[in-house]
């Protein structure tokens, strides 16, 4: 309870701080109540959007994995993040919504063992396994399957970004040095047991209600 409370407090501070720093920034729908009733699970289809590609990744204990082995036949929600992302409607949104999904599923006997959450960093320079471990403490419950991954190098990372179509661009200071932040289009991917991408969510579309609904739809239509 203490951990959950601390994590929530951290999240609120993160959101409040970012909100204050961005002035008139409108928080993405994922931070609030969904403004519509989503279509009933199973009443719609989620056609395949291509292969979820493989690649070499590191877990938060610095163990090497093939990404496909992490996907491991589960229904997967995977978001690309970097831990020092300053944009409240970027990576913090992804982690916030995935945390909401975790809270929904942890007591859901039907779904909780079917689903794996993955947060994969696209900044191997600064997001070491240790950094991912520290970051994960703000979000991950000990009793839920949420992996925090990074890569060993840009060489390992770039084919993964290419495969998922995840655009990312480092921001440089006037002197040409890396400013430590990246512009990117937030993307979170829903991946089925056959390693097919079944939905892609960006800032305006990512919400725990629709994600859980889509997970149920996959469960209802795939087995």
């Amino acid at each position, binding site marked *: 309870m203490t951990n959950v409370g601390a994590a929530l407090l951290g999240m609120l501070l993160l959101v409040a701080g970012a909100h204050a720093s961005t002035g008139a920034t409108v928080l993405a729908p994922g931070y609030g109540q969904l403004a519509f009733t989503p279509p009933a699970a199973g009443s719609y289809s989620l056609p395949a959007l291509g292969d979820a590609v493989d690649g070499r990744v590191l877990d938060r204990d610095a163990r090497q994995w093939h990404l496909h082995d992490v996907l491991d036949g589960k229904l997967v929600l995977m978001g690309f993040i970097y831990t020092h992302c300053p944009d409240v409607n970027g990576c913090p949104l992804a982690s916030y919504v995935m945390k909401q999904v975790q809270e929904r599923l942890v007591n859901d006997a039907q779904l909780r063992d079917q689903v794996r959450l993955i947060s994969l960093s696209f900044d191997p320079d600064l997001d070491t396994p240790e950094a991912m471990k520290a970051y994960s403490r703000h979000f991950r419950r000990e009793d839920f399957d949420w992996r925090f991954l990074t890569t060993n190098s840009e060489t390992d990372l770039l084919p993964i970004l290419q495969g998922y*179509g995840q655009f990312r*661009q480092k921001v440089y200071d006037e002197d040409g040095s890396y400013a430590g932040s990246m512009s990117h289009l937030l993307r979170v991917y829903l991946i089925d047991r056959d390693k097919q991408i079944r939905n892609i969510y960006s800032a305006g579309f990512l919400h725990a209600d629709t994600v859980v609904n889509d997970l149920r739809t996959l469960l209802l239509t795939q087995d």
Partner: protein
Amino acid sequence: MNILRSLVVLAVTGLLSVASYADETCMSPYMAKIQGQEDFVYVWTLGVPGVGDEQDKLVTVDVNPESANYGKVIASLSVGGRNEAHHTGLTDDRRYLWASGLDTSKIFIFDVHTDPAKPSLHKTITDFVAKSGGVVGPHTNYALPGRMMLTGLSNNRDHGGRTALVEYTNAGEYVATHWMPTGDNLQGAEKSGQYADGYGYDVRVLPRKNLMLTSSFTGWNNYMMNMGAMMADPEAMKAFGNTMVVWDMHARQPRKILDVPGSPLEIRCAWSPEHDYCFTSTALTSKVWLVYLDEEGQWQAKAVGDIGDAAKIPLPVDISIANDDTRLWVNTWNDGMTRLFDISDPHNARQIYEKKIGTQVNMVSQSWDGKRVYYTSSLLANWDKTEPAGPDLQYIKVYDWDGKALQPAFAIDFLAEKLGAPHQMRFGAHSLYGSKADIASR
């Protein structure tokens, strides 16, 4: 220049992962947008017999006043033949520009990120009709997360107006076809008025309301016909859309068919999170229409303003909404006029300014801040006017808007330059990609 560019980079960076609202005010709401000075305009241009190489082409115009090439064509990429070049759309990550042809149903995907000053042809989709199950005439190319939603205008069974939405991945792989609801197959949608024609034209979304909205034009038989012959043919004139369809965006299922008589064309939705409405203009009845959520939470449509004198057939075409939802530019093709409407009260659109742009005017695009307004002339190859010859016939014209009047900045005569008939414009900027960018696909 470096400082200016950095400012633009910052503006873009701050919004790339935000619900990035983008011509900059007319595109998909969740796309990176250029808030500062745009560097380029990409103009999808119809090939014209007897003009230059006679092929459709993507023309890149330098529009940054600080550039030595300001106001000049800096690149032109012909695609080999004529396709009835019409509309274009950028992918959500703004790295590719999709440009479609209404006649051949080909879709040309241009890489605009590797060298924003010189786009290259990345891929051509040639099996749109077969893959989609008979949809003809890809029109709007609209960005959704990681994929593109294309509207069709026609079908391969009768080349009439019944058609569908067709979804592709950003990589250009076919995903799904979503047929428009018709009277004999409502697909669960409510027919709220007297029409359920199944026609298509434009598409826009309001994700926070799960709204996907489509409009309706006419089929291949009409848009490829000589305009004079068509207008003299009563049967042909009956074959125009009279509907807009409210879709459940997430489910991709039609929910409600709204009567909007007279061919509602371009759709522009309001930007404010408090504004649950979108505008369109009707080509044949010359009105501004509003699609809005009523007090019961139901989507409704109503006419909210007259565009010129409908009896004179001004023919409203493209529209462009300001980023603060207070103004709407409306072009009327037949009289070559652009008209500015005050839409502060969306239920009462009032014209407050007008100016003649050329012999004919079709598309209008504005910078995010509304200070620069761009116009092109061409509507359809067989509908375009061919006289009087001169610089007002087929052009791009750029104006500065000072809040009261349009002041000419520069113009290019696309016939004199042997380019063709210019249609859809999209903006580009170095700042979107950064000269020092570490772009994943490189």
